Every structure is written in structure tokens, then in C-alpha cells.
């Protein structure tokens, strides 16, 4: 059974997003900063996996925060702040890729040529106890292929997979973020995973 990864919405310090948003609305800069700090890693990671390019993801994440925080006056709180933030971010990411170049995911090397940012985490994984050189190479190859398969999906489908399999969100949250009917989330996720599996199978995975 799949496991959802959950990342708290009320972090250490106990102040909820709702409280921070209330403070931010009246110009509390510290509250703004805390909202950013609280959500930046999650949002960036999701954006990065959808757009497949580190610098683009950074730019889009910034843009998402700017739009969300500037729009606090319009935020009615019917959904959580993070849902609202992710909605803005995913829209930006999906639209960005639609009008941009094809996605080329890099599993091991960053464009800088130094050990990749993504690769750094992956290498940690590979260096975990029990993973010998052969295992490392195999896992590395698997990650490269699955990322490549992810990159071939339509952006909207990719977003569903990222939110579910990488961010660990539930179907309801994904539906809310992407503003899709629940049934569409299910069918899109099923189809996208099927496409990924098919692609991996073609590669002899």
C-alpha cells in the first residue's frame, strides 16, 4: 500500500498558516517571512519536478510566492494557504512548460557540472548501507529513466503524479490544488502512471 508523505501545515512554534496569513494581511513582515520559510521547500521541490529545470523552478517558485502573498487580500481562506499557494505554483509550472521547451530531467548532474543538486540527494540514497557499486548504478539508472518518463508526460498529468507520488498529497488535495474533479484526478493519475510504467517497460525496466 502506498504511503502518503505528510508535511505539517502547522510547524514548530505552533502558529498556524491562518494566523500567519491574518498577520501578513496587515503588513506583518515577519509573518510573511515565516509563510515563505514554511512552504518554500515543498513548493520548490514540486515545481522542480514538474518543470524539470532547477533555475526555472526557482524563478517560478519566487513568482508563485510573490503572487500569493500579494494576493492575500483576495485570499478568503476557503482552502488552506498552502493549497492556494500550490494552486498558483502548479498553474505557473503547467503553463510555463506548455509554452516552453521540452523537459529534460537530469538525475545525476546539474547543469553547472558540479555534483548535481538533485544528484546530491540521490547519491546519499545510493550510498546508504547495503547499496554496493552495482546497486548504486542500477538505482541511478532507474531514477534517470523514471524521471525521463515523467518528463514525457503532459504537464498537467505530470503535476498530478508529482503531487501524489513525490509530494504525497491525497486525491482531494490534488483536486483542490489543480481545480479538477476528483474523478479526473483519479483517471489522470492512473493514466499517467500507466504511461510511466509503459515507458519503463520499453526501456527494459
Amino acid at each position, binding site marked *: *500500500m*502506498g504511503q*502518503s*508523505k505528510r508535511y505539517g501545515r502547522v510547524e514548530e512554534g505552533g502558529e498556524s498558516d491562518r494566523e500567519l496569513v491574518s498577520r*501578513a*494581511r*496587515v*503588513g506583518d*513582515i*515577519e509573518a*510573511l*517571512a515565516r509563510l*515563505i*520559510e514554511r512552504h*518554500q*521547500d515543498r*513548493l*520548490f*521541490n514540486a515545481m*522542480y*519536478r514538474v518543470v524539470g529545470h*532547477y533555475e526555472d523552478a*526557482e524563478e517560478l*517558485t*519566487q513568482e508563485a*510566492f*510573490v503572487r500569493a*502573498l*500579494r*494576493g*492575500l*487580500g*483576495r485570499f478568503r481562506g476557503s482552502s488552506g494557504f498552502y493549497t492556494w499557494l500550490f494552486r498558483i505554483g502548479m498553474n505557473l509550472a503547467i503553463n510555463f512548460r506548455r509554452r516552453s521547451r521540452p523537459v529534460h530531467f537530469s538525475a545525476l548532474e546539474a547543469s553547472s557540472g558540479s555534483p548535481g*543538486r*538533485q544528484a*546530491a*540527494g*540521490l547519491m*546519499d*540514497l545510493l550510498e546508504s548501507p547495503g547499496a554496493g557499486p552495482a546497486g548504486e548504478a542500477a538505482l541511478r539508472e*532507474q*531514477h534517470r529513466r*523514471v*524521471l525521463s518518463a*515523467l518528463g514525457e508526460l503532459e504537464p498537467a498529468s505530470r503535476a498530478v503524479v508529482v503531487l*501524489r*507520488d*513525490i509530494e*504525497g498529497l*491525497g*486525491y482531494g488535495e490534488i483536486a483542490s490544488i489543480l481545480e479538477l474533479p476528483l474523478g479526473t484526478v*483519479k*483517471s489522470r*493519475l*492512473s493514466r499517467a*502512471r*500507466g504511461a*510511466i*510504467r509503459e515507458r*519503463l517497460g520499453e526501456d527494459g525496466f
Partner: protein
Amino acid sequence: MMADKRREKAWRELLNSYYDGELSAKQRRKVEKALSSDEDMRAELSGLEEAASLLGSMEREAAPAGLSESVMFRLERDLILEGREGLNESAGRRHLFLRRLTAAAAVVLLTLGVGAFVYSVLVQPAVGPRTPEGAVVVDAGEKAPGSVAAKRAGVVSEAADDEALLASVEPAVYGSVQLAVRTEGLGRAQLQMEGLLDEYDIGPVVRSALAGSEEGVLYGFMCRPAALEGIVEGLARKGGHVDLLIEAPDGGVAAVSGVSVEEVLAWAGADEGRDRAVLAQRLARAAPGASEALAAEWLEEIAREDKGGLPGVRLLGPREFESDEPVTGAGSVAANQGSGVGVSEAPGAPKDEVKPAEGQAEVGEGGEAKVEEPGLVAVQIRVVREAAEGAGKSVEGVLETGEADEAEAWAGEDGAGAY
């Protein structure tokens, strides 16, 4: 066939939902029953699990360092630019430097939340009457001691309360800047200051303990505008709020903190005389001795494209700060002839750019230094310890300093909230 495809699709979705734990108990039992008797379905589930878990095993990517600061900077910049463009596009360009300072202020508040930077552009340094906000105000006609010029003369002093030294030189008349850093963490602020001085290769520097009841250090030095901008932004990144205002070039005048650039921009865009009067009154209150009419003149000056029309008041604008080119008509900085100490080289400036001031001789190290160094800015930075309570009060955001209607005016036209 079609029915088979629909059925297959439905089962796949069900299987995905099962894997994701999104089924009701009844649905789950139904799937588990099917799985127990259908090998293909078990293979399907296995493949699904493999791909999904592979994606899930990817290491999470942390946000790039500095992302939150960049966001805050963009927020501030966008609001400032929008507000400015809505009011006066050309004037917006004109005050780019001021906007940068203000934008940097937000970052400071963000990072430490305890520091307060009061940035005012004055001739007069650390002495003189103070506004309720702690800004220094110089009465018209009063001569500024000019500790900056002491540095200009090459004096490097670690002595405390060296007022005689500081007062012994003529005031700098070009690009004088005063910056007060108020913080609970005095030691940390000093370290930051020293680091920035090193980073921008500033020297010599006058360091002197603050006189009076304030605890802290006064730094005086000369530098290029670009270096000043970097130092201010560097300080701002680490903790404070920058206000700013007016430069008075002729040893006269005054000017003050306590009124932010944003408020001035909002003021310039206000249609109602009543709205304009509010800010002018505040500025006048912040600068004892200044009439409301004079304050209104200052504000007009700030908002105007041509800033040459107001005698005695000059803004520290982009012409000086966005270029290292000498500014025509800039005054010279006179060194202290009586001190007998002097270094005449401009920090960061090629020697061949350093020219003698009018009517004064150029002298090298150890001699009497009198030079004209257009393009340099005389800077004083006071790093002051401030109690937590006081610091908290002074770390008000830009919008919090004004009345509600002013804040709303600044919030933008798109209802984006009161950020």
C-alpha cells in the same frame, strides 16, 4: 470490446486508489478479493508500486538559498515600482536607489526582526537635536562636524569620544550620508559592519565610540556610491529597516528619517489636499524647526522630475548613486589642515582620478590632504545598541508607519492586500 476497455480502465483506477489508500473499506475489500484470485491484477499492482515508489524515493530538493529573501525583495520592489509608475514613471526611475534601500529594508525585518536602520541623508552626523524617531536634524546654517571628512583626511581613530577630532574638519558637501543601525545585537552588528568594510575594501575608517547615552560605535569613511549601496544592502539583508530622506548640501538643512520613500510616493499620487497635508505634517513633526510648508516643499522636490529648484535641499538621487561618474558641480571635501594627518586616496578609486580640490594642494600620505574626489560619498554609520522593546517599536514595516488610509493607498490598486 468497448465495455472491456471501460472495465479495464475502471479497475486500473480502482487499483491506483487502492494503492494510494483512497478507497472506502467496502471498496478495499472488493479489490483485495479480486487481487487474491487474479494474478494479472497482482502484477499490475506490483508494477504500479514499483514505479510510484521509485518516484517517491527521489531525494527532496530544498529551496535554493536566498529564495525567501528574493521573494521579499521582489514583493517590495514590485510594489514600489507599481506605486511609482502609477504616480510618475520618470520619477520612479529617478529614485531607483532609494527604492532599493527601502526594498532592502524589508529583507532586514525579515531576517532578524530586531534591528532598525534609520537612513537619512544629512550633512550633520551624530550630534544635534533628535527627532522623536531618533533622527538627527541639523538646523539651517549649522556647520556639521563632519567626522567623515576626518576619514577623508586619513584619520583613523579608535579613540572614544574623539569629538574634537571629528569636529575639526569641514563638512563634506557632496554626497554625505548618515546611517544609523539600531540593534539589540551590537557585537553582531559590528562584525557585520567590519565584514562589509572588508568586502568593499573600504579604508581608512574612523571608528569612534558614540558620545552621550548611546552605546555603540561610529564609523566614518568615504566610498564610491556603488560600494555604499552594497554596504547598505548588506546591512539591510541582515537586519533592519531603511528609511531615508533628504540631503542638504550647503551645510544648511535638515532632513530626516521617520518618513519613508513609499509614503512620499503615495503622497505624490494623492489627489486630495487633505491626504497630502497628512504626510507634510508628519514630516514637519519629524524635523523640528521645519514648517509644514517647508516639508511640503521637500516632498514636492522628491516627487519632481527636476530637482534643481529647491535651494538648500538636494536629494541623494540616482544621478549620484547609480553612476561612478563625477557629478558636475559637486563640492569638494576639505581635509583638516590642522590635524596634520591625512591620506588623500579615494577608496576604490584609481589614483589618477583623485584630483586636488580647488584652491588646495594635493598631498600624499603623511601630508596635509586636500583633495576633490567627485563621485565619492562621505558616510557615517552609527551602530547603536537598542533595547529589545525599543527595537521592536522601531522595526515597523513601511506600511505600519502611516495611517490606515496611507497604507491602503500604498497597497496597490489590485486589492493585493496590505503587504
